[in-house]
Every structure is written in structure tokens, then in C-alpha cells.
């Protein structure tokens, strides 16, 4: 039995687990109705929590602001993911080739996993200023290491039988890497990409909370400072939707790429 990781549970898997989407949809609907009823029954002041209809109205009214902010946040997230995936993959190949390099730096790569890297946000802003660079570096630092670890686990996890078979065919080290190790590592690499994407969202959003010059994080901080709670809730829900859509899209892409594993 493999220890489960967060990555193996994603929206699409959830859909596949249940026989119908009806029940979970019903649960979400019930949450919405319960929210609405609770707000009107207990006369919750809209400053504290506006009802779902008020939030929806705000989304429609402020659509331009929210759309621009979401576009800025999303483009930074995608950029951070791209940088982390490319550099993380390259690092894992370099580390994977040489046992000495692996032994030298892998303990440090693992150790970074227990450091709360979001705390770097104020430090990065002091060094790189309030702007996109700080957020990108923060998101990169958070999302780079999971990519390295997953890719490396994939490359090094090739079965011995496969390796011996390739060696018996007189394959060179390079051929073994490209034709045996990498194809076998694709599922691990893709789950690395999903973890990377998930934490990149967190990096960019926390970055926007601290360096408030653009994006949905700025909308949240600004609106909560001016007590416009409907807008705060709307922007928070948008970030959730954004993260969900991103992971859902990656999950669908994964199913296409590693179709031979769709039974898992």
C-alpha cells in the first residue's frame, strides 16, 4: 500500500468516486441555502456576512474590477507554475544523474518542506519591492521544491527489472534516462505539477495580501479595510473557483496523458 498523498485526491477523482454528481451538488446547494437562511433568520449584519444574493449582485456590479484582478492573479499564477515546473524538472534531472549530487543536496531539499515559506513574503518585499517580482519569487520558492521531489521520486522509482532489461540491451545511460526512466516517471511528474500548481496559487495570493498592488488579494485586503464585506466574500470565492478550475484542468490533462493509468 502506498501512502496517500494530497495529489491523488482531486475534483475529478471525487466526481469519479461518486455514482452521481447529484448528491454532492445537492450538498453545495444546501450550503448555499443554509447560508442564505441563516443570514436572514439571525439578521446577520451585512458588514459581517452578506447573503449569497448580495454577493452575487456585487460580482455582477463589480465585474470589471474583479475580472481585471482575476486576470492579473491568474497570469502571475501561470507564470510561477511555468517557472517552477521547468526549473524543478531540470534540477531533478541534474540531481538524479549524479548520486553524489543527490546525497549532497537532497537532504536540504527535503528539509525545505517543513519551513513555512509563506513567512518569506515580508522579507522578499523588503528586498525586491512591492510588485510582481516579489510575488513570483515567493510562489516560485513555495512551488519549486515539490516539483523537484516528485520528479526525482519518479525518475529514481523505475523498477529494477526495467533497468536490467534496458542494460541487457546495451542501452547507454542517456538512453535509459530518456527511454526508460522518464516515461515511467510521467505519473509522478504530473502529480508534482498538480502540487506545484496548488501551492503556486497560495504563494501568489499571500504575496498579494502583503504586496497589495494588484490582483484578487489586493481586492480582498482593500475591501475588508473599507468594510465592503460583499466584495471581500466575492473575491475570496473567485480565488477558490480559480484554484479549483486550475486543478480540474490539470486533472483532465493528466487523464489524457497517462490514459493507461486511468484505473487508479
Amino acid at each position, binding site marked *: 500500500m502506498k501512502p496517500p498523498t494530497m495529489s491523488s485526491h482531486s475534483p475529478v477523482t471525487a466526481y469519479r468516486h461518486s455514482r*452521481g454528481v447529484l448528491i454532492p451538488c445537492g450538498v453545495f446547494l444546501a450550503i448555499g441555502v443554509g447560508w442564505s437562511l441563516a443570514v436572514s433568520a439571525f439578521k446577520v449584519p451585512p458588514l459581517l456576512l452578506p447573503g449569497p444574493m448580495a454577493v452575487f449582485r456585487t460580482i455582477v456590479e463589480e465585474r470589471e474590477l474583479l475580472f481585471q484582478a482575476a486576470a492579473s492573479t491568474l497570469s502571475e499564477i501561470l507564470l510561477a507554475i511555468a517557472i517552477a515546473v521547468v526549473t524543478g524538472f531540470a534540477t531533478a534531472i541534474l540531481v538524479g544523474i549524479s548520486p553524489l549530487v543527490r546525497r549532497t543536496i537532497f537532504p536540504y531539499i527535503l528539509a525545505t518542506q517543513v519551513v513555512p515559506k509563506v*513567512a518569506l513574503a515580508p522579507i522578499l518585499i523588503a528586498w525586491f519591492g512591492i510588485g510582481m517580482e516579489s510575488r513570483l519569487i515567493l510562489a516560485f520558492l513555495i512551488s519549486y521544491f515539490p516539483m523537484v521531489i516528485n520528479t526525482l521520486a519518479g525518475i529514481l522509482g523505475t523498477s529494477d527489472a526495467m533497468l536490467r532489461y534496458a542494460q541487457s540491451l546495451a542501452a547507454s545511460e542517456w538512453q535509459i534516462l530518456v527511454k526508460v526512466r522518464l516515461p515511467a516517471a510521467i505519473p509522478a511528474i504530473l502529480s508534482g505539477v498538480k502540487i506545484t500548481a496548488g501551492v503556486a496559487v497560495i504563494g501568489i495570493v499571500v504575496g498579494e495580501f502583503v504586496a497589495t498592488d494588484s490582483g484578487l488579494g489586493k481586492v*480582498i485586503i482593500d475591501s475588508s479595510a473599507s468594510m465592503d464585506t460583499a466584495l471581500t466574500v466575492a473575491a475570496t470565492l473567485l480565488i477558490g473557483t480559480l484554484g479549483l478550475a486550475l486543478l480540474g484542468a490539470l486533472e483532465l490533462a493528466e487523464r489524457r496523458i497517462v490514459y493507461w493509468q486511468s484505473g487508479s
Partner: protein
Amino acid sequence: MISLARMGARWRAVNWPALIFGAAIVSLWEALVRALAPSQSLFPPPSYVMWSLYVRFDLIMEHAWPTFCQTLVGFLLSVVLGVALGWIISKSRTLFEALYPVVVVLQVVPKEALAPLLVLWFGAGTLSRTALAFLIAFFPMVINTTFGVRSLNTAMRDYATSLLCNRWQFFTKVELPWALTSILAGMKISVTLSVIGVVVAEIVAGRNGLGYLLLFAASRLDMGFSLAILLVLAIWGGALFAAVVLLEQRAVYWRR
């Protein structure tokens, strides 16, 4: 992801290349900064970071205490409630089909974004931070518990039934030990997440805590102080993780 439990085993056999590499990096950092950096406050060498830690130790500890308590409470709450919900979900087919997808969706949503709303609802104090730590750490616990309980195979179940196990024996001798591996794997994920939750809430709003102190130090461009606080946070994260690994080695000793 590769098993982080192996980290502990790795450290016990002294890894000389890694030690030399670490020492080289620190010396290089020290030398370069001393030679090139215009300001030691903005680009501090490691010695200055350690000196800041020494000089401000009392202040750091004063702010570390709430952070430590909140991460612990948030983490323990997420373990207790997460295991309870995960267990209930996995025992009923209807509940599983209704709630598991919801849990999985909420797991994927970036809950750090809730920090400002939680501060609005619960104030910029202990409650909002513990709540964020709990919310972030809770869902991996539910998912891992559900996975652990449901992965019990039918052969094991049949075998236990053939031995005339009663319900209690089945729970304590079969189900719990079986699910423990997965629950502990979840705890290793959740424990680091709970630190992140508290720190994010402290950075967004607050009057105390290491995240707040870090924001304060960085806004005064005292980077030696900032990095010293980061070091304390890293050590706390590492200590919590190590504690869970130790617990794992005790609890699921048969898997070593």
C-alpha cells in the same frame, strides 16, 4: 511524493557531503556579503542573523509563544475532528457519496485566501489564527483517514469475522492499526500546514506572533532580525514534523 519519514533515517547516518556543502554555502554567504554588500542590515551575513537571534531572543520568544500554542491547538483540533469526520464518512455509503466529494473540493481550494475574512469575523487574535490553521490542516486529515479505513481489504475483514471478532475487537485490533499508517501520513501533511495557517493569519493582521514580528522587522529593513525569526519558524516547523515522525515510529512500529 517520496516518504519524508526516510529523512530521519538519512540524518542518522552522517552525510558528510551534505554537511560540507552546507558549511561551504554558509561560509560563502558570509564572505560574499562581507566583501560586497553595501549594508549588513539589508543583506545580513549568517553571523549577523545569529547575533540578531541572540540579542532579540527574549522579544522573539515572547512572540513565539502565541504562535507555538496556536499551531499546536489548530493541528490537534484538525487531527481529532478530521479523524472523527473521516471515520464517520467512511462507515456510511450515503455519507461518503454526499460528503467525500465536498471534502475533496474544499481540500483543493486555497484556504489561505480566507485569512482576511476570518480576521473580520473573529478579530485579529488567537481565534482567527487557530481557525485558519485548523481549516488548512483539517481536510488532509479527513481524506487520509477515509482512505485508510476504506483501504481495509475484504480478506482481512473475512479473516477477522472468521475468528469471531466482536465489533470492539474489530475496531481496536484490525481497523485502527490498519488505518493508522494513513492517518499518520495525513498528520505529517497537516502539521506543516498548521504552521503555515497561523503565519499567514499573523501576516495579514495582528498585534503579536512571529508572523507579525517578521512583518514588523522587515518593514524596518532589519533583515538580520527578519531572518532570525524565519529561522525560529523553520526550527518550530521541523520540530513538529520530527515529533510526528517519532510518533509514527512508535505507533506503526511494524512498518519499519
